[in-house]
């Protein structure tokens, strides 16, 4: 069986599409490997992911903003996209107010650790996740009965309601925000600022001169100090969370619940007739998605800056989150992660375009969407369907040509 995707007859074959089919080939190639090879690939990928901000590969490394900070943002977006993918990709619910959950998680953490309590971060984290999950149920219970696209505007409203409420309620810091949110606990001796940086040991990073690397000891990362100067430890923390969530996501997707979501998304009425309590499963997807959003928000709050304010949660961010899921490939967890990474990374990469970067980013989103409407890494099922469609079309076109020529 040939795995090369045949370009639809009669369409101009653009180079971008060629890159796309090459990528599809890579994915298929991976899928065909035996288990040990797969495991090895995954292990190497994970190791590379952890080391990335220290390797600082040329071209990939951002020149005008701290690469560690960018990687933290990338991982945070990937985590969010993963959560939103459960809502949009698995359950088929368009949520345009996901930033609301992100905010709930962040604010719960901030309130517990510094504003009205002094809990340590790792105690506040699970509480934040639970609170966000409850807020997801509270929002979902009345609104999930609303049909498809109407849900989009209702959730959008929810995101705005959260932001405006936070802005207007003094108990939550109102527009001044909450500052000095404690960082996660250090491992090893605490630093004595400004000269002793603490930590168990230092990990130097690579510095590239063109394509020749050298060790840079001046900007080493201390293991493991969560300070204000180095974003890498935060990145490692959130990457760990991301990996754990991926594992959880895999388990649940392949379970009864995952299949119920798929049935609900494809045809809600049919699923209901077959005895799937669709509402219950939709609510579950909503709550789980919310919880992951809250998790990410919690990491964000205790991040390098340790400061949140209502301005950190604009409506626009919700749009970016949705864009991450769809651009990556709605329904595929790797697609969502890739999408989150792209949406967080590109604007920072485009800083070299200075004032034009948002313009370029907007154009890039449109081009990506038009170039790969099914997303960068579509779920395998969607790709199979598309391939079949293309084949049918090619056959039909062929027949047409024959008849016109004949």
């Amino acid at each position, binding site marked *: 069986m040939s795995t090369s995707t045949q370009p639809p007859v009669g369409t101009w074959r653009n180079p971008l599409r060629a890159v796309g089919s090459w990528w599809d080939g890579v994915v298929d190639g991976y899928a065909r490997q035996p288990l040990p090879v797969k495991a090895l690939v995954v292990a190497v990928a994970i190791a590379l992911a952890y080391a990335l901000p220290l390797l600082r590969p040329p071209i990939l490394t951002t020149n005008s903003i701290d690469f560690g900070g960018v990687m933290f943002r990338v991982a945070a977006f990937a985590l969010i996209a993963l959560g939103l993918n459960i809502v949009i990709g698995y359950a088929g619910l368009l949520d345009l107010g996901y930033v609301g959950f992100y905010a709930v998680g962040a604010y719960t953490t901030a309130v517990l650790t510094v504003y009205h309590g002094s809990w340590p971060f790792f105690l506040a984290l699970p509480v934040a996740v639970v609170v966000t999950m409850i807020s997801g149920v509270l929002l979902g219970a009345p609104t999930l009965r609303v049909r498809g696209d109407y849900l989009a505007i209702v959730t959008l*409203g929810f995101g705005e309601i959260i932001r405006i409420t936070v802005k207007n309620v003094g108990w939550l810091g109102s527009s001044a925000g909450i500052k000095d949110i404690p960082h996660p606990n250090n491992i090893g001796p605490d630093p004595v600022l400004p000269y002793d940086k603490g930590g168990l040991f230092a990990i130097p990073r690579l510095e590239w001169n063109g394509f020749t690397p050298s060790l840079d000891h001046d900007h080493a990362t201390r293991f493991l100090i969560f300070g204000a100067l180095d974003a890498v430890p935060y990145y490692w923390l959130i990457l760990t969370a991301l990996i754990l969530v991926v594992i959880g996501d895999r388990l649940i997707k392949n379970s009864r619940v995952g299949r119920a979501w798929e049935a609900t998304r494809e045809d809600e009425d049919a699923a209901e007739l077959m005895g799937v309590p669709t509402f219950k499963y939709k609510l579950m997807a909503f709550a789980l998605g919310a919880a992951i959003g809250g998790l990410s928000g919690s990491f964000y709050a205790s991040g390098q800056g340790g400061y949140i304010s209502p301005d950190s949660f604009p409506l626009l961010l919700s749009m970016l989150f949705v864009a991450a899921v769809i*651009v990556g490939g709605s329904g595929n967890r790797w697609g969502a992660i890739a999408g989150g990474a792209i949406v967080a990374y590109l604007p920072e990469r485009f800083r070299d375009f200075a004032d034009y970067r948002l313009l370029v980013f907007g154009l890039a989103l449109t081009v990506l*969407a038009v170039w790969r409407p099914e997303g960068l890494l579509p779920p395998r099922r969607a790709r199979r369907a598309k391939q079949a469609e293309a084949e049918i079309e090619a056959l039909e076109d062929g027949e047409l040509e024959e008849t016109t020529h004949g």
Partner: protein
Amino acid sequence: MHLDALFGSFDNFLSYTTGGLVFGAIYALVALGYTMVYGVLQLINFAHSEVFMFGTFGMAWTFYFLHGSEPVTWSLGRAAPMLLASLVVAMAVSAGIALLLERVAYRPLINKNAPKLIALISAIGASFALAEAMGLRDRFASWVGLDDDLANYVSPEKARDVYSNPVTIQPHNLFDVGGYSITDVDLVVVLAAILMMVALDQFVRRTRFGRGIRATAQDPESAALMGVNSTRVVQMTFLIGGLMAGVAATLYMMKIGSTRQNAGFILGVKAFTAAVMGGIGNLRGALLGGLILGVMENWGSAVFGPNWKDVTAFVLLVLILLVRPSGLLGEALGKARA
């Protein structure tokens, strides 16, 4: 809560209501763009806010062109000829942007029969790009060396800043409703909005093109089989949405007088809310939704304070959708009978 602020006197109540109607009319006109595209394509045209924003600039540019940059204050009658000219320009600019959107961000996806959601993303991208392009118009002008000649239009170094019509249109009181003076400007805004709405409604119900639009909204495949050119219908839909946004932009500038490259976003969200409230895909619903939203915002402002007005609007929306899950008039564009 200050219930007495709203209901304490009938004058206050009327005053808040009429003030809201004026903005509601503008919401309604912008909402039409969302509703038309949704009715035909079942897509949320996220970039429609930028179509409106370009219209507001088109309006102000016309005044700079015809009048110059000297700030003056005119009555509505004195400004009327230029207003008409600017209306034409704003409609043309908005329609042009809407057609460009359709061509670049939508048609390739529609042709590929792509999933609905991806069109939302391509529209979000286009929306960013359009808003940023407006904020960078001084750079583009300087590329071709025209930034000095076009200084009035591109505001070198200040392209992102607020951009005002040099002609301030001074409203004149016609009569008072409660404590609120109904001015000629307010009256024109509301009447123009209703007029456009009726005209469009008739167009969709009575003309051949309208029939095509309704047919496509109902069942695109059958419509195509019956000889309706679906590409033309989609283009037409965007064109109409753009024209209406142009009218809304002119009315908005007449009332507000200034704009900026991000002026579309908030208004777009409101207009979209209005469209959903009335029943998305429904032209009369857009009008109703717009007016109700405008009024409710003002009532909410009075009772809870202006900082809670958006919350009032969204809570109201949720309540309406819970009672009537597909909006107040919940009937789709395709089901409208001639």
